């Protein structure tokens, strides 16, 4: 038998599609369709209210219900969502974090109703809060109680739901927020240490090897796919080391680095969107080519990632990419093809060295929880550097800063521009359905169950899971469970990281020129130009807002940026109190048609109707006229990649509105 062939090809990885929208029933239909097409696992996308713990009807849920995921408010919704899908066999990944304990509770109850027992359940709750603070934004409680909830879930599942992955440590989102490969590795590993240390306090020491083996990762793979593969090999080495040295795990099998992946989406472009298919294919190679660090589960974005939500056909195309890769190519036929490669070994060694050094810095800050402000600032800075490279052309992005001439793309020709548009009636329907649900349940049982959740929350020695499952069974809602814990734990706003981003632009003449212009206009107005960068709604996409804020500062403006998740009235109040000359709103979650007019309405009410408003984010072309009619002065989308140019236009707008003559 030769050692360059496997005796029998490997089994393919699990194939998933990250999906969910509108209602539980609509999403169930979608899941069944995907499974029929050969998808082998489920991956549930929840809407932002469910992820942050609000029910439809709550002020904070406005415009967001059913938009970017499915709303699941109670066991009834969960039942409909999973109807006809046998939970004793299915492997389900749930992208849920702050409210993970609750959604796992609903899942367990839905399984119970199907006749499946806890020990049969397989799947993953993402449940990684540190990366929510750093990059993803769907947190609800302060760091300490959040870590406790995670530890409780790990401790509960390791004995009761033994096939469950209670947490997926995510480096995926860090790369999407601008992280370098080394930051991705170092922050993910430091995060894992924080979680394991927290669990160690809550389980019997003898269970730690078992606990260690239940921790899986969710990573990213960018288009520099050779380097990205090296990154994954480095992670598996570090993980093995950590298991052996820090947690004394002696069984090799329990130290295996297991990961799922979604390939890079940050680099997928709005311009010439068909090119994204090549990018996705190449990125998939990073996580499939080398057997020693191959993904266990893969989900791929679609060609229209930067345009809006994918339709079933778009998702099918991405699923087919996986199937071609697994079933037509010979990728699965061989042992590790990089073994003995000098290039690969060299890259891995570089990654190991760099990430060990960065892990040491995090440890010096007191570990991952304490280092959140540090890591956040580092990410914003890395993203600043990345964008700068695109602007200067040092990093080529085909169709963006090079090869821009293009034929017309037929892919976006349909009336909705080649994306899925969620019916806005969904929000009212879900709100009404919830009223009905509440009127039909045993209210006294719900009250008692929630009182018990509150009691356990205040009792750190007890595990939150049993009372949570009981509340799910009693018919409590996502918003009620979350409000109970918000009440016990308090709330939290994560750091924005923008204050520290460096911004040295020696020799950048365009920016130098802009600074002169900012000085000139400021002097004419009497005050330095002041901009408020605001993020209305539950949207956690902060990259654009952060980078605009940093560049506006570097151009010489005074910048007020309060971070994500603000209500329209909060933004209006800040604008008035701060006396800003212009407001820049950033929305990527698809709720701009509801929220932008709300902000403008709130500004008028607060007496600041004359302050110009510009908007940026994922705004489909067909929505622009509506926003302009509502009073928006300008709209920017990912096509507008040059930040200095955007800021120049904003300065010109401020000059015009304040009657400052154009410069000669």
């Amino acid at each position, binding site marked *: 038998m030769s050692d360059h062939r496997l005796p029998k090809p490997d089994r393919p990885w699990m194939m998933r599609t990250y999906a969910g929208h509108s209602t539980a029933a609509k999403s169930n239909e979608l899941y069944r369709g995907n499974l029929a097409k050969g998808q082998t696992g489920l991956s549930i996308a929840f809407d932002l209210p469910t992820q942050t713990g609000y029910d439809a009807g709550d002020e904070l849920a406005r415009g967001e219900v059913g938009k970017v995921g499915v709303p699941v408010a109670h066991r009834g919704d969960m039942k409909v969502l999973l109807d006809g899908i046998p939970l004793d066999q299915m492997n389900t990944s749930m992208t849920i974090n702050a409210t993970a304990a609750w959604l796992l509770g609903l899942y367990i109850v839905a399984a119970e109703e199907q006749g499946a027992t806890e020990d049969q359940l397989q799947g993953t709750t993402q449940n990684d809060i540190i990366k929510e603070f750093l990059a993803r934004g769907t947190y609800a409680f*302060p760091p*300490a109680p959040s870590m406790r909830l995670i530890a409780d879930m790990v401790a509960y599942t390791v004995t009761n739901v033994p096939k469950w992955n209670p947490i997926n440590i995510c480096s995926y989102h860090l790369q999407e927020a601008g992280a370098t490969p080394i930051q991705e590795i170092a922050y993910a590993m430091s995060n894992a240490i924080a979680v394991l240390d927290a669990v160690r306090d809550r389980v019997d020491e003898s269970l730690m090897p078992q606990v260690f083996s239940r921790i899986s990762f969710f990573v990213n793979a960018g288009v520099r796919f050779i380097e990205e593969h090296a990154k994954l090999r480095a992670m598996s080495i570090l993980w093995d080391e950590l298991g052996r040295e820090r947690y004394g795990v002696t069984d090799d099998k329990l130290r295996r680095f297991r990961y799922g992946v979604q390939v890079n989406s940050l680099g997928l472009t709005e311009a010439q969107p068909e090119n994204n298919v090549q990018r996705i294919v190449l990125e998939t190679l990073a996580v499939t080519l080398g057997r020693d660090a191959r993904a266990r589960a893969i989900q791929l974005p679609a060609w229209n990632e930067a345009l809006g939500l994918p339709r079933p056909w778009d998702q099918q195309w991405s699923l087919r990419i996986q199937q071609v890769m697994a079933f037509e190519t010979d990728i699965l036929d061989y042992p590790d093809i990089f073994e003995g490669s000098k290039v690969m070994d060299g890259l891995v060694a570089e990654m190991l060295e760099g990430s060990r050094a960065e892990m040491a810095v995090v440890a010096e800050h007191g570990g991952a929880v304490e280092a959140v402000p540090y890591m956040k600032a580092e990410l914003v800075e890395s993203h600043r550097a990345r964008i700068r490279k695109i602007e200067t052309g040092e990093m080529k992005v085909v169709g963006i800063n090079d090869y821009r001439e293009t034929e017309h793309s037929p892919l976006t020709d349909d009336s909705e521009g080649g994306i899925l548009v969620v019916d806005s009636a969904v929000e009212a329907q879900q709100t009404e359905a919830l009223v009905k649900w509440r009127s039909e349940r045993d209210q006294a049982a719900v009250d008692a169950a929630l009182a018990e959740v509150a009691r356990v929350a205040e009792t750190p020695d007890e595990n939150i899971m049993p009372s949570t499952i009981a509340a799910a069974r009693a018919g409590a809602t996502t918003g009620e469970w979350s409000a109970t814990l918000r009440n016990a*734990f*308090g*709330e939290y*706003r994560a750091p*924005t990281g*923008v*204050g520290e981003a460096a*911004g*040295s632009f020696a020799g950048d003449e365009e920016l130098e020129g802009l*600074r002169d212009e*900012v*000085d000139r206009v400021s*002097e004419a*107005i*009497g*005050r*330095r130009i002041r901009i408020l960068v605001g993020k209305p709604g539950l949207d956690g996409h902060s990259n654009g807002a952060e980078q605009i*804020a*940093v560049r*506006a*500062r*570097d*151009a*010489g*403006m*005074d*910048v*007020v*940026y*309060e*971070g994500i998740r603000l*209500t329209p*009235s*909060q933004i*209006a*109040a*800040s604008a*008035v*109190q*701060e*006396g800003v000359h212009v407001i820049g709103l950033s929305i990527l979650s698809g709720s701009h048609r509801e929220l932008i007019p709300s902000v403008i309405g709130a500004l008028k009410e607060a007496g600041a109707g004359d302050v110009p408003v510009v908007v940026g984010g994922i705004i489909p072309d067909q929505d622009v006229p509506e926003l302009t009619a509502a009073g928006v002065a300008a709209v920017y989308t990912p096509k507008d990649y040059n930040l200095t140019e955007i800021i120049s236009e904003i300065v010109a707008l401020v000059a015009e509105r304040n009657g400052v003559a154009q410069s000669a």
Partner: protein
Amino acid sequence: MTEPRGSALGHRLAERDLTAAPDALNLLESSASADSADRQDLLKATSPAVLGHEPAGHVVGITGPPGAGKSTLISVLVRELRAADRSVAVIAVDPSSKRSGGSLLGDRARIDFDPADKNLLIRSMATGDRLGGLARPTRDAAAALSAAYDVVIVETVGVGQSETEIADIADTVCVVVQPASGDALQFIKSGIMEIPDVLVVTKADLGQIAQRARRDLHAALRSLGATKTSVVAVSSVPPASGISDLIDAVDAHGESVDLVTERAARRRAQALTEFAEEHGRKGMTALGGRRAAVKEVKTLDPTLDVPQMVAELLRRAES
């Protein structure tokens, strides 16, 4: 005829019309010469000379190194003060970038507020070209706002010189330090830092080290004979603790000082500084030299606001 903008805004503040505050601040921040007369009118309208008494608001300075927890503390302080139905204005100062002149005004993000609450104002300021921990308009803003709000909180940048500067504009200075930082003890012992009115040790939730820091600072202050300074340990993360003790300490200090005398002395000192900045050696010589000027300024009507004092000094120098 309608009243000129500056005095109109000033009068509205004096009548505790809090909706005038943002515009008043826009005016005070303006460096346009066209706004200069309005600016002076506004300050005059909120001065003791016109009000007939010192503005009633208590100006509280919050200083201490970056990261000590000043903004987070202000967030819970504001909540507690508002619960007691006291109106609050916060001026949060952040540094400007030397390279670009721009700034990221980040303190606001740490301070929770209810947008429907008309009795709370949070305003950020950038230091601009000034060194130290305050912005050029901070003093004027604090003075004007103290005519309208019950409490005016000023958060400094918190580096170097600011510790002394804030004492020039606040009635009560709180220095905020985090446990185990050690700087505060050294600063106090070496005299770099003036002895604060209230010393706040934050992050008491971190447990023993916070209690120890509180005891050490207390002992150090006693050994320096600073028996009046209270030392309070607080936690600003839920469940917050020590906040009402802090408010009591700040209130007690505010009541213990002779505001009329102290504020007048601060205004006079400021007037002299501004006179010297504006009129240079020539101006000072005209007043008979620095020592004579110091005497001269003490003869000024103590109820005048700073620009009026400067104007009066100029008149005397020219006569």
